[in-house]
Every structure is written in C-alpha cells, then in structure tokens.
C-alpha cells in the first residue's frame, strides 16, 4: 500500500475513534509526539517517587507509612506501564532514560517543588494526584491503543491516591493549631504549581493543538484546568482552608473564575530553574549509575541461563 493510502486509512481510524495499534502505519510526527508525551508522563511517575519517598521513613503512624509505601509502589508501577506503552513505539527504556538524563525529555514541573512537611504529602495526594487524575481520565480515550490501555489501568489504581491525600489534609485541617497551619501552608505553596500541571493556556500551546487533532490529547489544557479547579475549590471550603487566590470567584454557571497564573515561574521551572530540578535529576542519575554493576551482573547471569536453556 502506498503512503498516501496508508495515511488515509490512519485518519479514517482516528475519525472513527478506533485505536491505533503498535504495528499500524502512523505518521512519523504522530509517533514522535506520542513518544514525547508518554515518556514525559512515565518520567513524571518515576521522578514523583522521590518527593514522596522522602517521607516514608518519617510517616507519623504505621498506617500512614503503609499507605504511603503502597502509593509510591503504584507510582513506580504506573511509570512501568507507561514506559511499556512507549516501548511499543520502537524506543527502548534505556533510550528513554538517557533522554531524561540528557534533559531532552521532561517530566511534570510539579515535582521540582519541595515536599517540606507531612501536610505537603497530603497536598500532593489531594492536589497533584487530583490534577493528574483529571488529566488521566481524559486520556483514557487517547487514540493510541497501548497508551489508552495503560491509562485505564492507571485510573483504576489511582482512585485511592487522592483520597489518601485528602484524608491527611482533613486530619491536619481538623487537628491542632500547628497542624492546621501546616495544612494551609501546604495549600499556599502547592496550589499554583498544581494549576500549572495542566500546561500553558490553549493559545500558547502549539503542541497541544496538534495532539488534539491526532486525538492523542482529548481535551484542552484550559478545559481540564477549569474542571480541576471547579472540583477542588469546594473540597478546600469543606476543610475551612483558603485557596491562595484573591481573584477566585464563583460564577453563575457554577464554575470558578481564577487569577492570573505566574507563567514566568512555569517556564523557569520547565527550563530547569526550579527549586529541586537539579536534585531530582541528580538523584535519578546517581541511582541509575549505582545500579549499573547490578544490571551487568544480571545480564551476565541471564545470558548464561538462556544458553543453558538452549543447550537443554
């Protein structure tokens, strides 16, 4: 089949809401865009293990410790599902990690903010996972089959994450004066970065328009951001915590008007100038390098094993 015909077939499938599968023909740009988005998503899950992992040994109760461990484990798992989805596009995980280390691939800017108190752990679950879920629910309908299937699985598993976070924040908002202060402080610091997680506004997001055409992305950044805000503001009100946005205003249609996001800060962090960018990347590189001899040993052992199998 010639390429024009292949492309026509591709668009027909997109049109008909059919999934594109790994062995199907796809435009090179589509493939590139997918790799960029899925790997960024995978790296985010994995880098996200660091700020939370930082608190496992300090979790204030055995129950809290168990839940946090289980949650971080899920995140590692989600990273894996996503790497696998990305690998079906013909790029190895090794290459993806290399791109991360060379800063050719990005991860969610939210993880470049420090997680400073136990209330932050609550806020991460409530706001960061909350924002991620809004995005992921939408992505279940993405046009690439393996990505869509990974999203379905992830959404199913993530449903407890946000509850875990909200439970912590609730406990603290209803706790001692000091706890309440920590909860408000966490919200103050993490509110705006959570809104930035949805990416630039639609008018400043050329990638996103393309991705929408291909149905890689299903809903626009601004729409998803608005959905998150409308869902989250009442949750804060129930706790008596105040959203750090003086311009926030409930409108007649039930949605919230909100203040201007500091886009300069967003672009700074994306370009590497956030509070924890270097720390996060250094940590990942260090762990990767320290594990090199283990992987080499495992490769050597695996080779001798498969020789045995063939000989038998």
């Amino acid at each position: 089949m010639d390429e024009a015909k292949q492309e026509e077939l591709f668009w027909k499938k997109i049109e008909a809401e059919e999934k594109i599968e790994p062995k199907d023909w796809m435009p090179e740009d589509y493939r590139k865009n997918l790799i960029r988005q899925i790997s960024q998503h995978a790296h985010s899950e994995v880098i996200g293990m660091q700020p939370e992992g930082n608190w496992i040994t300090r979790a204030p109760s055995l129950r809290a410790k168990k839940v946090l461990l289980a949650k971080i484990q899920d995140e590692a798992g989600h990273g894996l599902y996503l790497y696998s989805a990305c690998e079906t596009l013909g790029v190895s995980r090794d290459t993806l990690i290399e791109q991360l280390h060379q800063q050719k691939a990005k991860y969610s800017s939210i993880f470049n903010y420090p997680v400073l108190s136990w209330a932050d752990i609550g806020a991460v679950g409530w706001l960061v996972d909350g924002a991620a879920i809004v995005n992921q629910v939408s992505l279940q309908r993405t046009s690439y089959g393996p990505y869509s299937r990974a999203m379905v699985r992830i959404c199913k598993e993530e449903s407890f994450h946000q509850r875990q976070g909200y439970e912590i924040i609730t406990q603290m908002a209803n706790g001692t004066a000091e706890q309440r202060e920590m909860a408000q402080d966490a919200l103050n610091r993490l509110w705006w970065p959570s809104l930035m997680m949805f990416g630039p506004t639609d008018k400043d997001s050329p990638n996103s328009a393309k991705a929408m055409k291909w149905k890689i992305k299903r809903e626009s950044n601004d729409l998803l951001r608005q959905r998150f805000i409308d869902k989250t503001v009442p949750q804060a009100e129930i706790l008596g915590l105040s959203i750090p946005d003086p311009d926030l205003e409930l409108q007649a249609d039930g949605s919230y008007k909100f203040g201007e996001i500091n886009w300069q800060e967003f672009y700074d962090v994306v370009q590497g100038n956030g509070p924890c960018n270097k720390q996060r990347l250094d940590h990942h590189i260090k762990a990767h390098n320290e594990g090199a001899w283990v992987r080499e040993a495992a490769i050597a052992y695996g080779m001798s094993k498969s020789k045995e199998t063939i000989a038998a």
Partner: protein
Amino acid sequence: MDNAIYNYALRMGDTCLILSHRLAERCSNGPFLEEDIAMTNISLDLLGGADLFLSLAAEVEGEGRSADDLAYRRNERQYYNHLLAERPNKNFAHVMMRQFLHDALLHPLYTGLKLSKNEHLAGIAEKGVKESAYHIRHSSMWIVRLGKGTDDSKEKLQDALDDLWTYTGEMFEYNDEEATLAKDGVIPSFEELKTTWLKTVKEVFNEAGLEVPKDKWMATGGRQGVHSEFLGHMIAEMQYLPRAYPDAKW
C-alpha cells in the same frame, strides 16, 4: 501480663519494623524500576508484620498503648531488633545479603510459628509464612545472580557476606524465658531454626559460589537494647513527627 510473649512480640516486631525501614530508604534507589517495586513490596510486607507483632505486644501489655505508641514512643535502648536489621544500605549486594540472611530465618520461623499454641502468634504466622516464602525466593535468586554474574558482583557479594556474617549469631540467642516458650510449643525452637537456617544459607551460597565465613566472633546486644550507633538515627527520623507534636493525631 505475659512477659515472655510481650518480649518475643516486641523483638519480632522491632526486627520487622527496622528491616522495613532500611528497605524503605532504598525507594527510588533501585538498579532498575522493577526491582524498586520488589523492594518496596517487601518493605510493605515487613511493615505489616511489624504492625501485627507490635499490636500483639500492646495487647498483651494491657496498659492501653497501641502499636503506634510502641513504634513511635520508645527510645533506642528500648528497641530489641536484631543488629543485622539495622545494618546500613551500603550497596545493593549488602541490601540483598542482609535481606537473604533474614529471609532464611523468617520463613522457617513463620512456618514453625504457624503451629503455635498461642493463637495470636499462629495467626500472624499464617500471613507471614506466605509472604516470607516469596521473599526468600526473591532474595536467594539475587544471591545466585550476583554470585554467578560478574567478577565485580561476586566480589561485592562476598564482601557483604563477610561483613554481615558477624551479625547472624545473635538471631539464634535465647534466654530462659524463650526456652520455656519453645518447650511449651508457643514458639519454634531456636536450635532447630538455626539448623534449618544454616542448611538453607549454605545451599544458596554454595550455588552462588560464595565462601561461608569461618565462624568468628559474633556481635550481640540488640536483644538487650544495646545497638549500633545507626539505630538512633533511624529512630530519630521515624519518630520525629509524633515526638515534635505530642498532642497531634495523624
């Protein structure tokens, strides 16, 4: 209060808790993502075991304390974990060796404890025996992999074994109280556990091509609450929030 059961549950609970803590420190530091998940999984299992043992201790004590109180409000001199559990995460070989040496004990221990005359202990073991069967499968495979992998991995693993062997003797120490528990069929006999343990580790080390260190001086003290300097730091970190905000509920 049944002192013997209380002490035994504390020792077991503390050992599981501290070992779990060490594994949790490894989170996001694994050699590859799948292994990171395996480690946190084992850490989580051990934490579950710690919770059960400490809950039992708290119940036996009968003074209204909870498992959390025992974990978060005792100081390092009141912790009774094996010294082996608190050895630091020097490298992957150390982590895996420490884990294997424990797994080779915990699996037969839970297997014996399942038959305990004390139904609480038997209940804890019911769960533990399944988890520990998986743990030893995981760690013994890694011992073989690293032992048969490259010269470098074998050397690192042998180093780990030579370093950690000193801390294994203590796991089989017992006092009169524990001898009575064993005689009454409440806990498995330490002598028998040692025989099983030694057989397992020798088999696996043999397959991995490791040399079992000559029996030398064995460290002791954990069971009396006399630890290495490492434990204080672990506990300070673990207990910081409840200690800093004693009135707060978490």
